[in-house]
């Protein structure tokens, strides 16, 4: 295994600012918002650090697999799904009666199919998924600011149209835990994930003759340096994300989600400039109405997203990678705008992004998560070809 001691020194002023911001916000939320909201913020910080230090992303991994059959990142994601399922299913199967946690269940239908497909295209154009957009923006990538801004616009538009999409053909929510019981459902799920892992491994081996391992070991003498400054082995990312997702399930009462907040922020901005999002069906009842009319700091997803941005900012500063040079061309601005809109609209229709719907849905035993994976991956294939058509990437068969 090659040594990966960071070559750049930590960006100390940014480390200090990020640390103070994290401390200050934690204390403020702890004082001013009821419940364990400050803990969800700190979990978000942990997620941001893990995503950044392990460079755990979906967009680049999917593209690498589609273009080059490099399946290392996809295999890590399948491990994440397996490990999170192992942690979630017993909790959701109520073996701990004192833990009241809700699964990420959503209807299986046209809305998820179309939404995940659009999201898959959007992630390839925008350069990030739900988690990726947040942590690369926290890393200080200016182009991802544009993607995030239009992600918010798209998500807000999605809340305008969601009720129409839900009137299209579909089924209700289907939980395999409710259907089979958590033990049988878990076994079934692990068998399917293992089969997918085997398929990815087979395709990769056919291309290269062997597979790139998902690394987990580092030399002993590098441990402290790598733990603080990165870069973490991918396995650390898998374990960290799974454990923090479990912490979210226990503390917040639902799996980790990201994109609900984007629609909320957009609706709040629309209200601030004189609009009336409260008259839209989506924001007119239930938790959506309550969150629209409450402080944004009372919304768990928003607070976790703030944590992810600040956590990745801190990690990037520790690694000396904050605010990298970016070539902001007209084409990049176009793909960021188009990608962001598709990401946001798709996430709302698909009941979440790669985190809320894919990881959260599958790990909760919800069938919509599997449909999201299928449609999202098909969308990503289309997005990869769109990038070639737009001359962002070279044609298939040539190296990037």
């Amino acid at each position, binding site marked *: 295994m090659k040594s990966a001691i960071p070559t750049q020194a930590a960006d100390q002023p940014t480390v200090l600012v990020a640390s103070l911001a994290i401390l200050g916000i934690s204390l403020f939320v702890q004082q001013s918002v009821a419940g*364990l909201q400050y803990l969800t913020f700190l979990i978000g910080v942990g997620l941001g650090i893990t995503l950044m230090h392990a460079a755990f992303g979906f967009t680049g991994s999917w593209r690498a697999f589609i273009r080059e059959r490099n399946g290392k990142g996809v295999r890590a994601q399948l491990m994440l799904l397996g490990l999170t399922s192992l942690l979630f299913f017993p909790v959701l199967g109520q073996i701990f009666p004192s833990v*009241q946690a809700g699964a990420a269940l959503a209807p299986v239908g046209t809305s998820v199919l179309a939404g995940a497909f659009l999201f898959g295209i959007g992630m390839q154009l925008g350069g990030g998924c739900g988690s990726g957009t947040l942590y690369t923006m926290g890393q200080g990538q*200016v182009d991802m600011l544009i993607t995030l801004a239009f992600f918010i616009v798209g998500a807000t538009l999605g809340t305008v149209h969601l009720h129409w999409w839900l009137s299209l053909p579909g089924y209700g929510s289907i939980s395999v835990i409710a259907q089979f019981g958590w033990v049988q459902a878990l076994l079934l799920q692990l068998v399917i994930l293992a089969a997918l892992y085997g398929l990815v491994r087979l395709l990769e081996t056919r291309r290269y003759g062997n597979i790139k391992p998902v690394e987990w070991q580092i030399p002993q003498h590098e441990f402290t340096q790598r733990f603080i400054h990165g870069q973490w082995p991918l396995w650390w990312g898998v374990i960290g994300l799974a454990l923090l997702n479990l912490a979210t399930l226990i503390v*917040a009462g639902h799996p980790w989600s990201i994109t609900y907040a984007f629609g909320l922020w957009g609706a709040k901005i629309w209200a601030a400039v004189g609009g009336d999002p409260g008259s839209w069906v989506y924001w007119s009842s239930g938790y959506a109405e309550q969150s629209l009319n409450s*402080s944004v700091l009372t919304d768990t997803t928003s607070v976790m997203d703030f944590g992810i941005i600040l956590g990745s900012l801190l990690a990037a500063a520790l690694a000396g990678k904050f605010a990298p*040079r970016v070539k902001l061309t007209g084409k990049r601005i176009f793909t960021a705008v188009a990608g962001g809109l598709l990401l946001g609209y798709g996430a709302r229709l698909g009941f979440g992004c790669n985190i809320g719907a894919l990881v959260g849905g599958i790990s909760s035993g919800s069938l919509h998560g599997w449909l999201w994976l299928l449609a999202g991956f098909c969308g990503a294939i289309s997005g990869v070809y769109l990038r070639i058509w737009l001359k962002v990437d070279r044609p298939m068969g040539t190296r990037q």
Partner: protein
Amino acid sequence: MKRKQSRIIVGTAIGAAAIAVAIDHTRQRLPEPEKQLASQQAVIIIDEGEELPVENNGDCGKPPSPGRKKAPCSL
């Protein structure tokens, strides 16, 4: 775009977002304050050995969690 420019743009964006959150937090109410107020105002005297009233038997006296679903009382 140079690193310094990136830092300024991202710093400005995060600063603007922080101001927006502060304005929103100041203008919007916290969740269901009337419920919290009601529970603070209610004084229930229970004699030693007497059973608790039904509404206080579980953990539901806690303020509602801001979670997406209806807040589970045990959180």
